[in-house]
């Protein structure tokens, strides 16, 4: 157990937050704290300052507009999981959000925190990949936007630069025309991290598939997508086999490399059956 001393500041404006994050060493945005608090205790993070961003108005935006659905960085996973527009238009994100932790955790945990923590097993990541989500970033040099796939750069690593923070996550229009499912395999099937997580999203004309906990970052199952979208593969079972080309799982306490390979194949196949009807 580590006992740290650090400073805490609750910001009222985005520019103030960016300012502090840019100027001070070891300053961390603090959202739901469900990763940060655990990480600080275990010695993974040693912040000098926590910048509480939960009350920033800019980060509390949660709306549907012409661009799509805008999810502010302070929006919690419970809010997302039971939001009408999300459940209706992009249920795969509701499923991914709902599969994080237990209710009490999701009451604090944010979507932004889930992706900024950048665990390869983050349950919302694979759904966001299949939805082509955009990450809106605010920083000392202004705002920028990145596709979620470029946001993850390694385990615990993101494309954020010093001073930057995620302002919102955008699920752009048009929303997918078909069904999407997120399936998570875990040891207990209850509150547990993913052994593997598979998102399969039917877009009407094509399918997008992403997988978590099988590589340094969440990954797209491009081989499978290609077989179906380009080569007209009709067999889910045959297509699912190709996922082995897209992933590089390891063995850890939650499962062996071999089981992960197997489970991803099974869940991709089932996801295809459920969403593509093939």
């Amino acid at each position, binding site marked *: *157990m580590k*006992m*740290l*001393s*650090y*400073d*805490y500041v*609750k910001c009222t404006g985005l520019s103030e937050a960016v300012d502090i994050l840019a100027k001070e060493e070891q300053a961390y945005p*603090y959202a*739901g*704290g*469900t990763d940060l*608090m*655990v990480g600080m*205790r*275990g010695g993974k993070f040693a912040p000098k300052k*926590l910048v*509480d961003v939960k009350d920033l108005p800019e980060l509390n935006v949660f709306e549907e507009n012409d661009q799509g659905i805008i999810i502010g960085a302070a929006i919690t996973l419970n809010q997302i999981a039971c939001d009408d527009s999300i459940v209706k238009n992009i249920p795969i994100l509701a499923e991914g959000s709902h599969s994080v*932790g*237990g*209710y*009490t*955790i999701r*009451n*604090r945990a944010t979507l932004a925190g889930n992706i900024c923590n950048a665990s390869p097993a983050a349950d919302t990541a694979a759904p966001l990949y299949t939805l082509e989500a955009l990450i809106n970033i605010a920083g000392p040099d202004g705002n920028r936007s990145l596709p979620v796939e470029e946001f993850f750069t390694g385990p615990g690593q993101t494309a954020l630069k010093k001073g930057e923070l995620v302002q919102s996550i955008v699920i752009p229009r048009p929303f997918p025309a078909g069904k999407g499912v997120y399936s998570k395999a875990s040891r207990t099937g*209850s*509150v547990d991290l993913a052994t593997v997580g598979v998102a399969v999203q039917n877009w009407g004309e094509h399918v997008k598939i992403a997988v978590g906990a099988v590589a340094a970052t969440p990954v797209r199952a491009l081989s499978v997508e290609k077989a179906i979208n380009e080569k007209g593969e009709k067999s889910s079972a045959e297509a699912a086999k190709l996922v082995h080309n897209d992933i590089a799982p390891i063995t850890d306490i939650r499962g062996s490399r071999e089981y992960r390979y197997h489970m991803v194949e099974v869940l991709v196949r089932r996801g295809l059956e459920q969403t593509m009807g093939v």
Partner: protein
Amino acid sequence: MSDKIKIKFTVNGDSEEREAVVGETLLKFIRDELNLTGTKSGCEIGECGACTVLLDGKPVNSCLVLAVELDGKELLTIEGLSKNGELDRLQQAFIDHAAFQCGYCTPGMIMAARSLLERNPNPNDSEINKALSGNLCRCGAYQEIRDAVKDSASK
């Protein structure tokens, strides 16, 4: 670096003004500063639920919340549930169903279940399971807790 921050909040209905050490968890603050020792610690990483309290009416793992965040908020702990010596009906249902053994998980369990009943006054088994699965009971009173929650809902 400011070591302590002045915070104003209400706890179990009473307004309070205190100083909170930066970096201290809400759990520690509740137990050591407010001396409300009904709230328990079982893991301090958000996995057991023993530390569950309601913050602005919503359940949180107080081990994952900073004490300074209490500023401007309303805190409800197990001690605030019974009024004038009268038990909340959920507390009574826990007694009627013997929904605990050692009782160590019980305060957190009751707070989490109280909040469930507020969101969903008539939960079924599967809704109870989903809502409370972040609360561990090693004594294994799960079946009795489900019964207690349903029973108190039906009253």
